[in-house]
Each structure stands twice: as structure tokens, then as C-alpha cells.
């Protein structure tokens, strides 16, 4: 067992689960989507991205790109929330934010699948 691998897998899976937790719930109900959950999802996603830096293999490159895709959408959601918060109908704003996080969820999902497939292919 390798501590580095544990941390690596932990952050990638955590990024997806937090993202899923935020995404879960009625899409236009602000009570179902807490700001701290989005915050945690962004922080963990950023850490996962940095952990993927510098891996020159093909799988490493794809892992990094999925992470970048997730970061992009989560940060877009956060910016939307910060700028439009209070100036627009809360329910429709929530729809935009949650749908963006849904896109990020897909990217995180692909990332986890890649991680699993790589682990299985190592056969150890």
C-alpha cells in the first residue's frame, strides 16, 4: 500500500461525491443546495487537479483534463452565484448553478471511472 496512492484516490473520489451531494435535490429549490457544499467541492476539485500535475502518461493527461473541465464549471457556478446573487430570482439562479455543477459531476465521474479502470488494469 502506498500513502500517495491513497491520498490521490481519496481526493478524486471526494471531489465527485461532494459534487454529487451538491447536485442532489430539486434543481430550482435553493434550500436543497448549500453554498458550503459547493465551496468544498471546488476546494477538493482544485486539490485533485494539482495532485494530477506532472504525470506524463496518457491516462495522467486525460485525468488532468477531466479535472480541469470540472474546475472550470464549478468555478463558473461560483462566479455566477457571487455576481448574480441578490440581483435575480433565486430559483432560476439556482437552476443555472446546479446545472453547471451537474456538468462538473459528469467530468468527475469520468475521472473516477478512469481511476478505477487504471487500477483494475494493473492486476495487483
Amino acid at each position: 500500500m502506498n500513502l500517495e496512492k491513497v491520498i490521490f484516490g481519496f481526493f478524486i473520489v471526494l471531489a465527485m461525491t461532494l459534487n454529487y451531494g451538491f447536485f442532489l435535490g430539486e434543481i430550482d429549490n435553493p434550500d436543497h443546495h448549500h453554498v458550503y457544499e459547493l465551496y468544498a467541492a471546488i476546494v477538493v476539485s482544485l486539490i485533485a487537479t494539482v495532485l494530477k500535475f506532472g504525470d506524463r502518461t496518457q491516462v495522467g493527461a486525460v485525468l488532468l483534463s477531466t479535472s480541469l473541465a470540472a474546475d472550470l464549471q464549478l468555478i463558473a457556478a461560483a462566479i455566477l452565484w457571487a455576481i448574480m446573487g441578490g440581483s435575480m430570482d433565486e430559483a432560476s439562479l439556482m437552476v443555472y448553478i446546479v446545472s453547471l455543477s451537474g456538468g462538473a459531476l459528469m467530468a468527475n465521474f469520468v475521472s473516477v471511472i478512469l481511476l478505477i479502470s487504471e487500477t483494475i488494469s494493473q492486476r495487483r
Partner: protein
Amino acid sequence: MNNILFLILRRLRRPLIVIILSFAIAIVGLTLMPGVDDKGNPWHMSVFQAFYVISYTATTIGFGEIPYPYSHAQRLWLTMSIYLTVIPWFYALGKIITLLQDTALRQAMTTERFAKSVRLIQEPFYILCSYGESASVLAKALDDKGIRVVVIESMQERLTELELTDTNNVIPSLCADAKLPDTLVHAGVHHPLCSGVVTLTDNDQVNLAVAVAVKLMNPDLPVLARAEREDIAANMASFGTDHIINPYVLFGEQLAVRVHAIGTYILHEWLTDVPGDTLPPPECPPMGRWIVCGYGRFGKSVVKNLEREHMTTTIVEAMPELTGCENCIVGSGTEAKTLIEAGVHDAVGIIAGTDNDINNLSIVMTAYELNPKLFVIVRKNGRHNNALFKKFDANITMQPHDIIAHECLAHMISPLLAQFLALARNQSNAWANALVSHLVSVVGEAVPETWAVTINSKNASAVAAFIQQNRGVTLLNLTQDPANRQKYLPVVPLMLLRNNEPWLLPAESTFLNEGDQILFCGKPMAKSTQPRLLNSHKDLTYIVDGVEVPDSLIWRWLKS
């Protein structure tokens, strides 16, 4: 560049994670701390506001308490946040700066930049695998002739010298070991426009390694290599090194040429010198008995060539058993006794050919005092003693790096020039003298430009089109001035190569064929004008027929 980016990212992994974590903790904490707004209502900072505050706090910009004065709880948390975030921030900055100063990274970046500038070269270029004394002369001459050069050199000081010299074109240079194949690849061995590799380091083993590497990587690329030892030269020849240059052998041969054919010698020097220079009138070594001091590689070559010219030699050598010289006078030649013993009073000339500059000067000064009528040839090794040699002003100062540079130039300017010079050596002295005086009368005293022209539709479209229509173009036509056909350009055709058969000094009435290669020699102005004749149909028609062809559609219609 890709690799470098990944190298930076990998090294920055830890500082980036430390920053993200410290920011994350500080931001969450700040949003949780209870505050009071300007109307006294309880107030919590939003995530965005907290991010803003922490961002300017961590970077030590510090805009103050925005948007409302903070409560005690918020101030307490912010105090802690300062220590939590500022330190990681500086840690990351320090890491980035260390990384930029990292020698491995900087080396990778300079190599990458060098390889990129080589890739971007759009003209034919040569690779010089050193920037020593001969290579610097060569680089300057090539640059003056408008030929691009790329330099690899393992000593940084020499490259600094290159950076300080004034050149017409940018000379990409890299401080690296030319023996490494990677370095050669970066320098453009595989580049489609690379026209050759020149390796002139004073270490034969390095030259050999470069020649082998180039011949393996790109067998069609011409390689010019310097080799002073015969076994190395033979080794180089065995795998097809195109030109092997031994400065001592070359000087010996040139000396022999000077003795029996001074005209040929002048021709050679003149055609391979840097354009624009004027040559000092060369002196012809006298016939008779010579004293040769030093019987190393240089001395051996000189003695061999002098004896071939039927001159007697007396050899003075300090270590006869080491150099394998029989019946010689033992001594260094720097003291009068040895020289008198060698018969300095009735000799016609002396050659100081040891590998020590000060000894050489001492020899010739002593000999000159004993016999002021001596013809003096002195070998110069390092360039640092330039002033001393200039002051002494020997009849001939042998400078290995000049000889090497000239020889390389003869091969690099055009393969035709090398062929012409080889043929000219077999001609009589009278022939060479006549040619030199003809050249001087046409192109003047300054060193001329030499260039080759190939008659085909790619390089001389107008001439090729004329030939295809069976309208004869003579060699004379190519020397006429496109501004006025009664006048002639200052240019002389030296050689015509047809079906691999060379004609020296072809007659001007010769009709050109497709595929002919012609070597011209002339003023720089003629070199820049001639392409008009070769490629412009209008100019060529004017020259050949004396008729101005109308260019535009309307004029052509009016004429018809």
C-alpha cells in the same frame, strides 16, 4: 516547451496544495464568524466576500475592513488567517523563483529556444561544432557572404565572444557538447535545409565523434572535419567524411605551391577570402637551402614539400628521438650556437615551426640577427600573441586557423569552387597569372564574390524557357548589364560544368544547355543583378534580342 511546463507543474505541486488548503480554511472560517453591518443587524460574510478579503490579505495588499468594520470574532479569525495564508504564499513564491533559477531548468529552456530558432531557419545553413579560432574566422566569412550558420560550442566564454560580435544574420548558438547526438539534432542535422556540418575543434577525438554521429544520422550531409593525426584522418575517411582538413599538410602544400606557382597560390587565396578585403602581395620563397626548426607534424609536412621542390633542408630539433628524425642538429634553435651549427650564414630561409610561440619568435629573431637576408617563415599557434607577430613582420606567418578557414570556405561556398581550385592547381603558373590579371582588370583589387548558377527552370526560369524554345543564350548574355546591353557586368565565368565534365574558363560564345552549372566570380553588385537576367523573361529578351517586350495586357494588345 511541453516538457518544461510539466516539470514546473510537478515541482509546484506541494506549494500549490499548501496554498489551496490554507485559503480554504481561512475563507470558510471567515464566513462563519458573526459580524454586524452598518445598521447594527447580525451579518455573515458571503463566500465570495471572504475569498476577496483573504486574497488581498494573503498577498499582503491589505485593503482594510470591507464592507463593514469587523467584529471581534472576525478580527480574531483574520489575525489567524494572516499567519495561515501569508507564509504559504511566500513559500510558493520562493519555490517559483528557485525553480526559475534552477540550472537544469534553464539549460532545458535555452536548449529548447535554440532548437526552435534552428527549426525556424528558412535558408540553407551550416552547423559549426565549435567556435574556436578557425571557426570564428569561418563564421564571420560565411556571415559576410550571407550564408546562415548555427554554432555549438562547449565553452561559454567563446559563445559570449560570439554574442558580442556584429553579424548580418542571427547566429543561433548553444553551449553544449557536440559529441552528444541530441545536441546535433537540436542544431538541425535533420533539418531539410542543413547543407553541412563543420567540426573544427582542436581535439581530434571530438571531431571524429561528431563526424561518425552525423554520418550515421544523416548520411547525405557533407561533413568537413579537422584531423591532425593520420590514423584519425584515415578513420574519418573510412566512413565517408567528405573533407578532412589537416592544417599542417595544407600549409606544406601551399608552401610548395608558392615556390613553384605563385599565381596559383594568389588565385586560391583570392577566391576563398572574405569579400571586400584586399590581399597583400604575397612573397615567393627563394630556392636554396632552408633551416627547419622543429620536426613535429608541421615541420615534417614542410620538409616533405620543400624536398619535393628540390630544396635541401637542415633540421634543428630539440628531441630527435621523440619525433623520429635522423641526421638533425640537436637543439631548440633559440640560441645562436645551434643556428650557426645549422649553417644559418649561407641558408636562404628559416622556418620556425615549434608549437611554442615565444620560442618561434626567439628563433627567428636570433636567426635574423645572424643573417638579415633570410626569408623567414614563422608558425603562430595562439591568437593572443598577435601583436608580437605583427611587430616582427615575418615574410610568411603561418596561422593554422586561417588556413583551415580558407580551406573550409572553398568547399562551403560552392562545390564548384572547390572543383575549380583543384583543377587550377594542375594548371601552369602562367595560366594562373593571366587569369589573376584578367580578374583584377574586370572585378578590381578587392576580393570578389564567387557563386554558382544552375541552368534549370527552378533556378534560372527565363534562360531555361529560352533554351526550350531553341533560342540560343550564350554565356556572354549572362554577363551583360540588364540596364544597358552594350555594357557588361563586372563578372567573369570561371568554369562550366556540363554532364559532369568541367570546362575551365569557358569561351563567352558558348551556348548554354539546360542542366549546365556555371561558376561565376565578380563584384557583389553583379551577384545581386544577375538573377534578373536568369529569371526575368523581359530582361533576357532585351539582352538577347535587344527588344523591349511589353509587359502589360494593354501594351501587348496595342503592339499586336
